[in-house]
């Protein structure tokens, strides 16, 4: 039930009642995570309006890929909230349950970005990281807005 985004871009939204599901698909879990990060940006604003002017490094660690994805999205939510940033691009590396990432973006410009809604947090609802039949990886969860 794709709602927006394109398969080409590797991310999409899916519907969940009052909230929004974010999904990334890529050749590796790391790529799926990065693309889900774009889906997260798209919850708030049109990603193409965000310029990669500054960067931030992020790291998290979790007992499995599901929780690592939860932590990754929550790390982005936290960085956006505390730094007042929106992100345009991500580079993610995952090694043995540890995630290292760089996120590029810029401070929120309300006139230009028209940010619709802030994300409160990533939920366990439909949280899933798995390999698809074609070998690609999918990472998804619903975010509370």
């Amino acid at each position, binding site marked *: 039930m794709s709602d927006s985004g394109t398969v080409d871009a590797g991310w999409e939204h899916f519907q969940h009642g009052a909230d929004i599901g974010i999904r990334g698909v890529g050749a590796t879990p790391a790529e799926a995570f990065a693309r889900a990060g774009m889906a997260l940006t798209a919850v708030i604003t049109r990603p193409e309006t965000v310029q990669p002017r500054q960067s931030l490094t992020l790291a998290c660690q979790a007992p499995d890929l599901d929780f690592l994805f939860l*932590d990754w999205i929550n790390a982005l939510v936290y960085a956006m*909230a505390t730094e007042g940033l929106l992100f345009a691009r991500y580079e993610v590396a995952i090694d043995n349950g540890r995630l290292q990432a760089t996120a590029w973006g810029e401070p929120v410009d309300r006139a230009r970005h*028209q940010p*619709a809604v802030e994300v*409160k*947090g990533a*939920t366990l609802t439909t949280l899933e990281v798995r390999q698809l039949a074609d070998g690609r990886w999918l990472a998804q969860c619903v975010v*509370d807005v």
Partner: protein
Amino acid sequence: MDPDRFTQLDATTWQIPQQGNMRVPGILYADRQLISDMDAKVWEQLTNVAALPGIVQAAYAMPDAHWGYGFPIGGVAAFDPDQGGVVSAGGVGFDISCGVRTLTTGLSVDELQPHRETLADFLLYRIPAGVGSTGRIRLKDAEMTAMLEGGADWAVRQGYGRREDLERIEEHGRMAGAVPEAVSERARKRQRDEMGTLGSGNHYLEVQAVSEIHDPEAATAFGLQPDAVVVSIHCGSRGLGHQIGTEFLREMALSAQQYHISLPDRELACAPLNSPLGERYLGAMRAGINCALANRQILTHLTREVFAHVLPEADLQLIYDVSHNTCKEETHTVGGEKRRLFVHRKGATRALGPGHPDLPEAFLDSGQPVLIGGSMGTASYVLAGMATSEGKSFASACHGAGRAMSRHQATKRWRGEDLIDELAGRGIIIRSHSYRGVAEEAPGAYKDVSAVVEAAEQAGLARKVARLRPLVCIKG
């Protein structure tokens, strides 16, 4: 959802009989049409909540129930700590103590009319709203701790509002048992710029007119007359509450095994009330409640400042402040016996009936004001808790209209600019920093709030007192 999946007990009471691993039955209060429009996940989630350890009497869902996180939104469940009862971060939600307060202004619609545009402009200027807005209050660490302990009472001591406001807030404006030390540094940091901010999404500050009176006696007790102007504020505990919810949801999900809790769905992440994790969450969550109460109190102060500037003859008096994402320790009668229970209300409002000892004296005859938010184009309602609500739902009622379509569907159907023009044509002024935000919150994206409150009244949860129509809406 197919209503026939339930056993119908009366026109608005539908039961899921105890089956499988359910410890109690599930009860949904709604009419057939509302149930038909609900997501089937409500049935599943109600069944799952009914399977949690220590649950008492039944798992309840209110007429505005919809698919939530583990618990349905519009869910009510009480747990007994002495019977292995649990507390669930998902059962409270990310926006701890999100709620609504409504204030009378002493103005009539006619008195407001010439000043509406000016008022809207000043409110938008003064009330930090939407993504990227920041409050003007920066709390040092010790002040933050005092706020987390003191709630609205702290805010009043800082000069935000009046002492008499406190009597018109649940818990008299201060949730006891808060443990600021249980709130992480990250949660505190996330709140740094967010004291006295409205937030975004479905949060709003609305100037409204009393358009219908359904119960003149209770309306008088609440200070509501026909055509009177009131102000309603809907928001919660901001970044601090969101971070508490985020951190404890994760920790509870990862600790369930340690506490030998078998979860039908990991979203039901919870911990025994009598456990270090359960107690730590309760302490942090109560601090989150105080943050929400302080936040709404500061916003009230800012609103009063705006009115004092634009319409100095106005006098904003708080009717009541309700929270709808909480877990509270309360005494309820179960099977004729008084028991100390922890009542989760996720997207549900406490609705104390007449004569309840926790009510302010002014509401002893009427019951507790229950404030129901609608959409910016339709209506909101003021209800009053009914005596029957205690036996029906641990004294709880609905909290709002609930969405009928996704945000994305709404943006495909409406443009923010067009909606603002259309609503202006109907005499409703919308002010927002984001057109897309307005489109996502289009009135047509919400269910009919009137059907929800009718069902709540028919079910004996809360009765209609007054209907409010929007005049000015500051969208978060």
